[in-house]
């Protein structure tokens, strides 16, 4: 079962990355997907980042209520959680839900209404034409979303922290500047690009091979979200070990 999925997934990847017939058309599609998958995700990522940043800061504050520890540690700990895990992994999971389900249902609908057959009949590599622009678009845009999420998350931490009175502005700023490791950002960006590839390809796989009707489209969409989330978590473990050790 798992092996069969894996086999078909590899076959689809091969199809996606073979001979584009007209690069200019791919370019146009990619621009379209940048808006569709990337720009349209800014809102939800911003909202989630500001709240998560706030929650992380307040929780950290209550966890280190030891008077011996300097309060700038709150800023430092919040910053590292956001940079290391939150802005890549959590954001990827959110994207898996939003972008993954939209890719799977779009391709699934195209499959069950024979639109994919129609492309094939025209002599077009349907997998390449439909999926490659999505992969490229999200891989380009995911790092921007990640950086945006970091900035907004840290801002949310400051806003919530000062509002709740658990940390002062000076201490928070001192904390987020203290012992700053730029590599954490690189690490997060690398992860975000890989996660973008996972989200688009796994969801496209489920959508592209949908058979049947509207019910199956719904199922594919659910499966796309679940499977890409699981694969993301798995790779998160692997990448953490690989990149941070």
């Amino acid at each position: 079962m798992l092996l069969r999925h894996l086999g078909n997934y590899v076959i689809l990847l091969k199809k996606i990355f073979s001979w584009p017939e007209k690069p200019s058309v791919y370019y146009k599609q990619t621009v379209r997907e940048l808006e569709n998958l990337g720009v349209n995700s800014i809102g939800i990522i911003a909202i989630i980042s500001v709240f998560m940043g706030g929650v992380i800061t307040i929780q950290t504050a209550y966890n280190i209520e030891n008077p011996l520890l300097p309060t700038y540690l709150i800023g430092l700990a919040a910053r590292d959680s956001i940079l290391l895990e939150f802005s890549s992994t959590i954001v990827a999971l959110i994207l898996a839900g939003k972008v993954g389900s939209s890719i799977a249902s779009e391709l699934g609908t195209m499959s069950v209404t024979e639109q994919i057959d129609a492309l094939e009949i025209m002599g077009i590599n349907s997998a390449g034409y439909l999926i490659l622009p999505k992969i490229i678009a999200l891989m380009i845009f995911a790092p921007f979303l990640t950086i945006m999420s970091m900035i907004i998350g840290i801002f949310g931490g400051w806003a919530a922290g000062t509002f709740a009175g658990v940390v002062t502005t000076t201490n928070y700023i001192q904390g987020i500047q203290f012992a700053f490791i730029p590599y954490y950002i690189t690490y997060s960006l690398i992860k975000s690009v890989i996660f973008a590839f996972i989200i688009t390809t796994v969801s496209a796989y489920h959508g592209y091979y949908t058979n049947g009707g509207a019910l199956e489209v719904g199922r594919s969409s659910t499966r796309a979200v679940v499977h890409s989330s699981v694969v993301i978590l798995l790779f998160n473990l692997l990448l953490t070990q690989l990149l941070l050790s």
Partner: protein
Amino acid sequence: MIEVRNLNKSFNNTQVLKNISALFERGKANLIIGRSGSGKTVLLKSIIGLHDVDSGDILFEGQCFNIMGLKERNIIRRKFGMLFQGAALFDSLTINENVRFNLDMFTTMSVLEKQKRVDHCLDMVDLENVTHLYPSELSGGMKKRAGIARAVVMHPSYLFCDEPNSGLDPKTANIIDNLIKRITLELNITTVINTHDMNSVIEIGDKVFFIHEGQKWWEGSKEEILSSGNLELDDFVYATELVRKLKEQRD
């Protein structure tokens, strides 16, 4: 001209097509008829290579299509026009863009030339007023007509239609039938149509193939079909009260 020889196709151990051979001639409307589930769609999709067949040959002008590599196949496929059962228009494109799609993909025509060709095709199917709408904003019959416009925009040599008039009122069905027939004659192309509509058979069936339980049960012209004497075919032809009454009157 398309020839299929001894075609066999099965899904998970159930054989759907059983040793089908047929010759679809140029300049004629070739109709494949048969009851629901008899294998018409599978036959059509096997001919155009959407299904891989288990055995048998499919020849386009004598060239064996089913053993070709993808590249060669795609060259022949550029000469295909296909109208799918549900029209299969691209949801994200307007009617105008749907019809222009192939021109954008495969030609180096100027924007003006493309638009002229698109307008011509949409005129042909009487859709010149809805070109800016999306498929979801069209009725079923309009979608089918747009599908025909898209199918013929590249001057195909082969036109395939899967139930072009199912779900349409008799009048619209008739218009679509005659449109397909006219295109076939005007462009002198090989047209293969799946249908279970006896009206279409009588209207445009230059050549009719009756598929029964995955086998080619009978073939002939529309003139011959009413007096074939074939039990299963008569059962299909005279399934409705209307046709039965007409037969009684004639006899």
